[in-house]
């Protein structure tokens, strides 16, 4: 089965590395008084301190999660493909559910963007890894 639009397998590790890397960077940044531009009105302008801080933290995290979510499995067959689509469907479903609820009850649009940035990817990665874990566990029980 041809699986197009997926990154090679090693991208998964690169992705996790980016996600982990974002933690110390954002701790250091916040310790030095940086504010994420999505957290409130900061200074404007491209590539000033806070914009760079934003790139180093939020974008690093998102691109890391993106790579993890869309990297191939070791053997990417039709069952994995089906699990992937199913998890993606759930992620979109949950995302829009949260989005609709927060549209009604929350006025802070900035944080809604942030929510929208992470929820689908995060939920997808967790759900996808969980079903694969369950699949492998059922296998080891039967052999």
């Amino acid at each position, binding site marked *: 089965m041809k699986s197009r639009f997926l990154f090679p397998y090693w991208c998964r590790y690169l992705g996790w590395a980016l996600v982990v890397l974002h933690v110390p960077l954002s701790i250091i940044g916040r310790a030095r008084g940086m504010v994420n531009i999505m957290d409130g009105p900061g200074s404007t302008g491209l590539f000033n301190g806070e914009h760079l801080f934003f790139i180093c933290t939020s974008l690093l995290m998102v691109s890391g999660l993106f790579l993890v979510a869309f990297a191939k499995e070791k053997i990417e067959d*039709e*069952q*994995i493909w*089906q699990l992937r689509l199913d998890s993606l469907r759930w992620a979109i479903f949950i995302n829009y559910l949260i989005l609709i609820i927060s549209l009604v009850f929350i006025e802070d649009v900035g944080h809604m963007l942030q929510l929208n940035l992470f929820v689908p990817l995060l939920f997808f990665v967790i759900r996808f890894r969980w079903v694969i874990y369950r*699949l492998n566990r*059922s*296998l080891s029980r039967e*052999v």
Partner: protein
Amino acid sequence: MKNNIRVERAIKNITQADLAEQVGVSRQTINTIESNKYVPSTVLALKIARVFGKPLEDVFMLEDED
């Protein structure tokens, strides 16, 4: 849908891993097909039947509720 892949494998004396390798899927997939948890695509079903050298309906068969 049910299947007798397990029986056919025993006749041919190959493991799940051997079959998986010959049709280009993971061992998990063969395992879930054998235990009727996953319904393979037509292409995969045809490939499996070809490995056993039998027509499709000797390996996969419909059940009453299908």
